[in-house]
């Protein structure tokens, strides 16, 4: 991740600049979605201001509440971490659809290790380790043994979906673990007292770690040779190979990084609540798949992925608040809004340009 010799760095220039027409189309769809989102928020706020007693008034209250921002940030953590991980893997040419599984395994392991050792941060490390190991298995299977990436990713998800409740049942006698201690939130003095934005300065450590990870990922992709190798490995592996960098190694590294990042997300998810619940789709409940849509919508840009995560998580936060306020829409229906929005966004964004060589095995040519 450091600054390495820059000679293989320009191999990816050839991959850029092609199909500009479709880039423009995508750009406008994204702009339209973003514009509509902003416009509807503004309209809602205005309507709420004019008719404070109406549904719009309630929604506007919820939107401007500092609790909503706090909840949005908290809900963003697992999705955004997983999305960052997905970007690393997919940019290198390995589609990691098993992010959901990585979140599940790390959420459980974090609680288990924290319960065993009594240390929250030891538990966090345990969660990250478990996720990284599962990602390593995925890497060996797809890169080493040329398995179909989608099927192997599904297998990773299903293995974790079975393994975490199985382990919980064996160890605790129930798919849900007992509760462990949680971390205290970190509060920045003065700034935390700001209205609305104060929520940014009084949050769980995992939120700050997310900010760091988003910036760090952006920096790696934009400013380091390693970031350029990852891009080249996904766009034009042959050129990277010719430049003397091992495509296999770059891909292994990228998939392992995706394991570490998703592991941080999963560990933060369960440790923030102090418990792992493993019934049905487990507490992860589709967050790994929402993460995939978030980075597609964010066009593989860490910051874009973070912003689109905020959109999904914001909806989720609002639905929680709305459920509590009981505004007439049934709870069960409000709960599915994030999933509906994911489909709508995917339909609007349509075909995202995958990295040229994503999903393909690369064979070193002697």
């Amino acid at each position, binding site marked *: 991740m450091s600054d390495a010799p820059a000679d293989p760095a320009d191999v990816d220039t050839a991959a850029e600049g092609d199909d500009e027409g479709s880039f423009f189309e995508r750009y406008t769809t994204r702009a339209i979605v973003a514009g509509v989102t902003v416009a509807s928020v503004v309209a809602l706020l205005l309507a709420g201001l004019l008719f404070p007693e109406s549904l719009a008034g309630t929604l506007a209250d919820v939107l401007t509440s500092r609790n909503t921002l706090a909840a949005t940030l908290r809900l963003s953590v697992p999705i955004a971490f997983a999305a960052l991980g997905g970007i690393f893997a997919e940019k290198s040419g390995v589609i990691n659809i098993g992010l959901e599984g990585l979140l599940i395994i790390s959420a459980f392991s974090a609680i288990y290790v924290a319960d065993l050792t009594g240390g929250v941060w030891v538990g966090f490390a345990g969660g990250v380790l478990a996720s990284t190991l599962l990602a390593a298995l995925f890497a060996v299977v797809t890169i*080493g043994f040329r398995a179909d990436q989608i099927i*192997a990713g*599904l297998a*990773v998800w299903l293995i974790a979906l079975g393994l975490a409740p199985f*382990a919980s049942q064996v*160890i605790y006698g129930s798919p849900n673990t007992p509760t462990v201690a949680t971390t205290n939130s970190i509060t920045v003095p003065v700034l935390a007292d700001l209205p609305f934005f104060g929520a940014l300065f009084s949050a769980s450590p995992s939120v700050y770690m997310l900010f760091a990870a988003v910036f760090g990922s952006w920096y790696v992709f934009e400013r380091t040779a390693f970031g350029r190798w990852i891009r080249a490995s996904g766009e034009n592996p042959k050129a990277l190979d010719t430049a003397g960098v091992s495509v296999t190694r770059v891909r292994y590294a990228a998939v392992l990084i995706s394991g570490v990042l998703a592991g941080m997300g999963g560990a933060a998810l369960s440790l923030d609540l102090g418990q792992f619940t493993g019934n049905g789709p487990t507490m992860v409940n589709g967050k790994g798949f929402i993460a995939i849509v978030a980075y597609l919508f964010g066009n593989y840009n860490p910051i874009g992925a973070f912003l689109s995560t905020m959109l999904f998580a914001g909806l989720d936060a609002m639905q929680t608040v709305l459920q509590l306020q009981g505004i007439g829409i049934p709870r069960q229906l409000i709960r599915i809004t994030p999933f509906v929005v994911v489909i709508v966004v995917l339909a609007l964004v349509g075909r995202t340009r995958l990295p040229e060589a994503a999903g393909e*095995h690369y064979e070193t*040519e002697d």
Partner: protein
Amino acid sequence: MSAADRARDALSRLVDASATERVLISTAALVLSVLIGAVLVLVAGRMTTCTAGEAVYYFGMGFCYDPVVVFDRLFLGALGDPLSGGWSPNGQFAVTLRETTLLIFTGLSVALAFRAGIFNIGTQGQMVVGALATALGVLWASSLVSGALGTVVLIPFGLLVGAVFGGLYGAVPGLLKAYADANEVITTIMLNFIATGVALYLVSGIFKDPESAANQTVPLPEFAQFPALLFGGRQDFSIVALAFGLLAVGVLYYVLEHTAFGYDVRTSGVQPEAAEYGGVDAKRTVVASLTLSGALGGIAGAMYVMMVLGTFQTGIPSYGFDGITVSILAGNNPLGVGIAALLFGVLKSGTTVVQFATDVPPQLVGVLRGLIILFVAMPEFFRLLARRVPGAGSRREAVATDGGIAGDRGGETDE
């Protein structure tokens, strides 16, 4: 070789690999998964607590779970203990066949989509929609007819309702893929969550059975359910349903291999560009195959309601995800689905026996499900393994029908 060529090559390698090789790989994957399952049971046996008297000892270490007992229960228990003499047509074997019947339909659903080159992860949701529609439709119709006539009319009607609603729900990701380029893996998974959520809303509200504490619809009358013939009366199994399943296997095989539509589906799956060049309407094929796939998932839901539960209840077991395993194990071949469904039916039914006998949690089957998919997905691993075994290596090479792979292999280095 361009990237697209290579992708096509990889795909045709999967499709063209000879049937023998496919069977060998699937068997090896199954055996390996079960072996890893045994190790997992041993490890789990170290992590749980039990009295010294209950523990078993291997390699000088005590374990709470005995993998030998586990696998004895898993396989012999699922077959109703044919060796110990107590076999009865109402025993565990009926449960195994019940699971097999449902898995045939979800397996066929996934397999059909796969053959068209589409990942339908949404069979679970399509099954939920079909099940709910059947429970409500048949309940409504059961007030119009009754008795033996009712059974003859209502069961085909229920299957039809399940197929139609499951099919419509399957058409949604099909249309999204064909006309909005939305990736079907993600949309079908999201639609699973939506189906479960909406079903919960409907069944806990307007369609709730007022006399039940559970979130369920009003139970169907006895005559609107599959009759238990010969065996399985106590285990909610009907041989009629299994016969329907086997019929579906035959029909789907015929449709895929011997009709124009089947040809379109198969060529779209193997070589989409070539199929389109040859006059196949790609968009229509995508929508049609996902609709048909959804219809099969919907029939699985109808079967579950009319054979197993007699009502719709929230929390439908994950037959849809198991269908992915069944289909992949079967190499997406309808005839193979019949066999794979029986094998996986044994695993599913066996885990409940295991739970009775040994306390090993039934979630074990969930882990096996994932492991089987993982191993079947990596044929290279088994080819490598086979080449390490003296004598077997040369034969395996000859079986590869994909041309050029032998040369490619020489250049393949994993660091």
